[in-house]
């Protein structure tokens, strides 16, 4: 199993900050497409993905237990 985390606008749109879901074996790109389709989240495309709190490239494979977070363009500071 994996945790899928959402923040900011994506969190508002999904309506949850966290979803427990099995993503093992999928690539980051596949996870983005899955979220885009499932939640009709066009903005998911613009987000970066962090795996276990580190930015991941689009072809990275999700492993068992990985925490996968959608990171929309940041605006802190």
């Amino acid at each position: 199993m994996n945790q899928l985390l959402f923040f900011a606008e994506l969190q508002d749109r999904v309506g949850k900050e966290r979803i427990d879901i099995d993503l093992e074996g999928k690539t980051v790109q596949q996870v983005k497409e899955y979220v885009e389709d499932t939640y009709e989240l066009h903005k998911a495309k613009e987000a970066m993905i962090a795996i276990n709190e580190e930015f991941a490239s689009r072809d990275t494979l999700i492993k068992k237990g990985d925490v996968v977070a959608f990171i929309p363009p940041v605006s802190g500071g």
Partner: protein
Amino acid sequence: MSESCYITQKPIIIQDVVDRVVRPEAGAVNTFIGTVREFTKGKQTLYLEYQAYESMAVKKMEEICTEIKRRWPDAEPSIAHRVGRLEITDVAVVIAVSTPHRAESYEASRYAIERMKEIVPIWKKEHWHDGAKWIGDQKERQPGVPAKEDIQ
């Protein structure tokens, strides 16, 4: 020794961030304080809401501190960011960098705030009279993974 980077829901005490970097070796401390501005491009903000992916945000803030120490070996940085609801003129972020001499304190402090706006997962939602919106500066970023992280 207190942590050099932290996220808090309470008002940030500027002196507290400065205290983390003041030391006998330093003659200069540069501090950047980000406050909530009332008008952005003519539009009035009523208040802001900041949200963070807290554990990752602290990690990324610490990463910025490490980058600073690599570039300016004599620098001692500290970064604090507030989350939750912030009113106009409230302090959202405080960066303090101490260095032996002043030029480096300015450079490293500037570097820190620019990097904050690139890699730290914190977001603000602007609330106006007629609505609200999560802000994200798409122009300055590439969709997907930024080239920098992709290469590393």
